[in-house]
């Protein structure tokens, strides 16, 4: 995985520029071109942030899983650096998703927070990967930290479908879907330019994500090089 990233961060200037353009176009489309939603009105525009964020978060956690698995298998430091970078950015986007959901929920449901299945699931994801970052920072020895984190990266990802299932069942059994649920987005009668806005937004977020990831990966790589150099210098 990390190998494929190499050409990415060599061209990360271009990637950053592309991301900037896509994000700007996406913003224009989501805020100006797309019409307000028939039921939810203008608030629905938050969805152009919300859906890409959560997809990016899941993509990130998938990369954590892949990096962790490769690290345990091959013991290559770069896979661990990738997993660490992806986890950090995944946490960022998960937190953003929750904030957006909350701001969207206030006018839509009348509350900032409700124990809706989706919100709960996202909050649990955040807890798991904040735990992942804490675990990393609390283990002194670097190799051990990497190993421990890799195990959590794998176990956490394997657990997501189970958590997903349990949280959904729990909500549907407990609370009749009386309030408007976010999965009841009116996909049936979407305006075509809404879909376009969502697509452009998503592409923008994706480009931005890979830009952030490549920079964060490079930071990890440089820190590794610094360590290697110090080791060389400390050579006896």
């Amino acid at each position, binding site marked *: 995985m990390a190998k494929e990233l190499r050409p990415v961060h060599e061209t990360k200037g271009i990637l950053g520029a592309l991301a900037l353009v896509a994000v700007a176009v996406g913003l224009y489309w989501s805020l100006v071109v797309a019409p307000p939603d028939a039921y939810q009105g203008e*608030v629905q525009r938050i969805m152009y942030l919300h859906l890409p964020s959560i997809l990016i978060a899941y993509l990130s956690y998938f990369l954590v899983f892949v990096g962790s698995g490769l690290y345990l298998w091959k013991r290559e430091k770069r896979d661990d650096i990738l997993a660490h970078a992806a986890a950090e950015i995944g946490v960022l986007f998960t937190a953003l998703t929750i904030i957006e959901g909350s701001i969207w929920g206030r006018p839509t449901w009348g509350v900032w927070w409700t124990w809706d299945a989706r919100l709960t699931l996202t909050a649990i994801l955040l807890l798991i990967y904040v735990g992942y970052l804490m675990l990393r920072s609390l283990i002194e020895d670097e190799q051990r930290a990497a190993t421990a984190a890799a195990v959590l990266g794998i176990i956490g990802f394997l657990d997501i479908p189970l958590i997903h299932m349990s949280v959904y069942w729990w909500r549907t059994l407990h609370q009749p879907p009386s309030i408007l649920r976010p999965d009841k987005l009116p996909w049936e009668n979407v305006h075509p330019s809404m879909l376009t806005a969502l697509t452009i937004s998503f592409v923008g977020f994706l480009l931005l994500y890979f830009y952030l990831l490549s920079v964060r990966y490079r930071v990890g790589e*440089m820190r590794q090089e610094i360590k290697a150099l110090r080791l060389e210098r400390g050579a006896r």
Partner: protein
Amino acid sequence: MRAWGFVAAAYGIVWGVILLYLYSLKRRYDQAAAELERLRSTEASAGHEEK
């Protein structure tokens, strides 16, 4: 018009946070790059002194 307030808050917070993250990333990047540069240059000279 109240709805636009929520939209503005959401977009403002999200892009604000992302920009903050970008800033912190840039700081860490520059710090690491400077440290690496410093080590590389001193390594060359230190190697001469020892030999």
